[in-house]
C-alpha cells in the first residue's frame, strides 16, 4: 500500500482548476466567460476523475477542449495586476522573508526525493519510488504555499486568484505538452518511426563510417524535433540506424553511440515547438510576445552542441 500517491496531487490540482473554472464562470467582466469556464471545467474533470473515466470519454473531452481553443473561446481575464509601486513598497517591508517559500521549495524537493522513497513500514510505503520526485514537488508546493500565506498574511483566496490569473494567461497552451505526448504515443502506435528510420537507412550511403554517424545524429535531432521528445526518438533511430550501421556494420562502441546519440536528440529538443513544456510554456510564463523567443535564443547553442557531439562520436565510437 502507498500512502502518498501521485494521483492524490493530481486530484488536488484538479480541484484547484475546478475552483478556477467557477471563478471564471461568475466573472461578469471576462471576455470569453462561457468558453473559458467550460475549458477549465473539462480540464478539472480530466485531472480529478481521468483515471476512473473510460479513455474514450476523456478523448472526447480533450477534443472539446481543442475545439474551444481553436475557435478562440478560451481567453485571459481582464483582471488588473497590482500597481508596481505598491508591490515595491511591500517588498521593502517584507524584505528577504518573501524569498523563503521559493527557496524552501527546491530544498524540500531535493530532500523529499531522497528521503520519501525510503520510508516504509512493512507493506506500507510512503510513496511509490518512481513517483518520489513528483510527490516531493507536490508536497513542497503545498508547504511553500503555507509559508507564503504566513509571510504575506494574505487570505488563501488571494493565492487562488493570483495563481488563476497566471494559469489563464498561459491558457490552452498549458495542456499542449500533454497533447503532444499523446500525439507521440499515437505516432509510436502507428509505426511512424520505423518508416522514418527506413527512409534514412536506405537513402544514405551508410557504408561510410562518417555518414553512418552523421545520419544517426541528424536522425536523432530531426526525429526528436518531430516527436518533441528525445526518449521517443531514441529507440526508433537506434534500432533503425544506429545499431545496424554504426555497431553491426562498422564495429562501433554502443555505449558511446547511445550516450552521444541521446545528447544529439536533446539538441533537437532545444529547437522544436513540439517540446512545448521546455520551449513554448516558458515563453508564455515569462510573458514573451514572440512564442519562439526561447527557441531562437537556443538555436546557436543547439547547433554548436550538435556539431560537438557528432565530432566526438566520430572521433571515439570506432576507436574504443
Amino acid at each position, binding site marked *: 500500500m502507498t500512502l502518498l500517491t501521485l494521483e492524490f496531487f493530481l486530484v488536488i490540482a484538479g480541484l484547484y482548476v475546478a475552483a478556477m473554472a467557477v471563478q471564471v464562470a461568475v466573472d461578469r467582466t471576462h471576455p470569453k466567460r462561457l468558453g473559458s469556464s467550460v475549458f477549465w471545467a473539462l480540464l478539472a474533470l480530466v485531472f480529478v476523475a481521468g483515471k476512473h473515466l473510460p479513455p*474514450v470519454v*476523456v478523448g472526447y473531452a480533450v477534443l472539446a477542449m481543442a475545439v474551444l481553443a481553436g475557435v478562440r473561446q478560451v481567453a485571459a481575464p481582464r483582471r488588473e495586476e*497590482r500597481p508596481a509601486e505598491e508591490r515595491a513598497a511591500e517588498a521593502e517591508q517584507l524584505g528577504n522573508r518573501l524569498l523563503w517559500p521559493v527557496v524552501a521549495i527546491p530544498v524540500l524537493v531535493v530532500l523529499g526525493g531522497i528521503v520519501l522513497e525510503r520510508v516504509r513500514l512493512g507493506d506500507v510505503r510512503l510513496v511509490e519510488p518512481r513517483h518520489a520526485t513528483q510527490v516531493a514537488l507536490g508536497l513542497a508546493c503545498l508547504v511553500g504555499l503555507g509559508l507564503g500565506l504566513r509571510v504575506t498574511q494574505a487570505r488563501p483566496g488571494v493565492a487562488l486568484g493570483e495563481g488563476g490569473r497566471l494559469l489563464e494567461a498561459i491558457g490552452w497552451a498549458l*495542456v499542449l505538452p500533454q497533447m503532444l505526448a499523446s500525439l507521440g504515443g499515437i505516432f509510436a502506435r502507428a509505426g511512424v518511426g520505423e518508416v522514418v528510420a527506413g527512409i534514412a537507412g536506405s537513402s544514405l550511403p551508410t557504408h561510410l563510417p562518417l555518414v553512418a554517424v552523421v545520419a544517426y545524429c541528424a536522425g536523432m535531432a530531426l526525429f526528436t524535433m518531430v516527436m518533441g521528445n528525445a526518449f521517443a526518438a531514441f529507440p526508433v533511430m537506434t*534500432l533503425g540506424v544506429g545499431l545496424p550501421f554504426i555497431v553491426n556494420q562498422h564495429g562501433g*562502441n554502443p555505449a558511446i553511440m547511445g550516450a552521444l546519440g541521446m545528447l544529439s536528440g536533446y539538441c533537437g529538443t532545444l529547437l522544436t515547438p513540439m517540446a512545448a513544456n521546455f520551449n513554448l510554456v516558458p515563453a508564455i510564463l515569462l510573458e514573451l510576445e514572440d512564442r519562439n523567443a526561447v527557441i531562437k*535564443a*537556443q538555436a546557436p547553442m543547439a547547433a*554548436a552542441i550538435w556539431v560537438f557531439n557528432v565530432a566526438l562520436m566520430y572521433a571515439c565510437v570506432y576507436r574504443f
Partner: protein
Amino acid sequence: MIKLVGILVVAVGFACRLNTLLVVLAAGIATGLVAGMSFNEIMALFGQFFVDNRFMTLPVVLMLPVVGLLERHGMKERVAKLIQSSRAATSGRVLLLYHALRGGTSTVGLNIGNHASMVRPIVAPMAEGAALAKHGPLAPAEVASIRAHAAASENLGNFFADDIIVAVGPVLLIKGLYDSVGVAASVWSIALWGAPTAVFVLGVGWWRYRVLDRRLAAASGKTR
C-alpha cells in the same frame, strides 16, 4: 510513407499558424486513420495518453499559486534589489551560475527547479535586475532577450548533465533498450561518455551569455 501524413499536418498547421492544440489533434487523428484505427479508437488513445501524462502539467499548476501570491507582494522587486547590491553581477553571469548549479545537481539526478518554480520567480528577475543596475532602464527587446536566455539556461542545465554520476532517467532507458536486443554496454560507460558534452555545454553557455552581456552593453551605449 502514408503514415507520415501526421508530420505533414503538423508542418502545414504550424506554417498556417492555426491553433496548435487543434493541429496536434488533427495530426493524431490523420495518423490513426491511415494506420487503420477507428475514430473512437483514436479518441480512446488520446484520452489514455492524456491521462497518463497529467504529471507533465502538475508542476506548473501547483507552483503558480505560490508564485502569484509572492509576486503580488513584491517578490520580483525584492529579487531585483538583492542582485543590484552585487557589483560583479551581470545578466550573463547570473545565468551561467544558474546553468552550472542546475547542471551540477542534475549529474546526481537531483532536480532543483523548473521554469515555473525557479526561472520566472528568481532567475529571470535576477538577470534583469543585474542588467538594470549595470546599464539603466532596459528596452522591451532587451528584457525579452534576457528572459529567453534565462529559459535557455534552465533547459541547458537540465538536459545535458543528466545522470553522469547517478543514473536515473535516460541512461537507464539506453541500457534497457540495449538489454532488450542483447547488446552489451555498462551503465557506467554510457553515463561517463555524456561527461565531455556536459562540460562543452557549460562552455557554450558561457559564450552565449557573454554575447548577451555584450549586446546589452552595446544597446545601452547607443541610447546614452
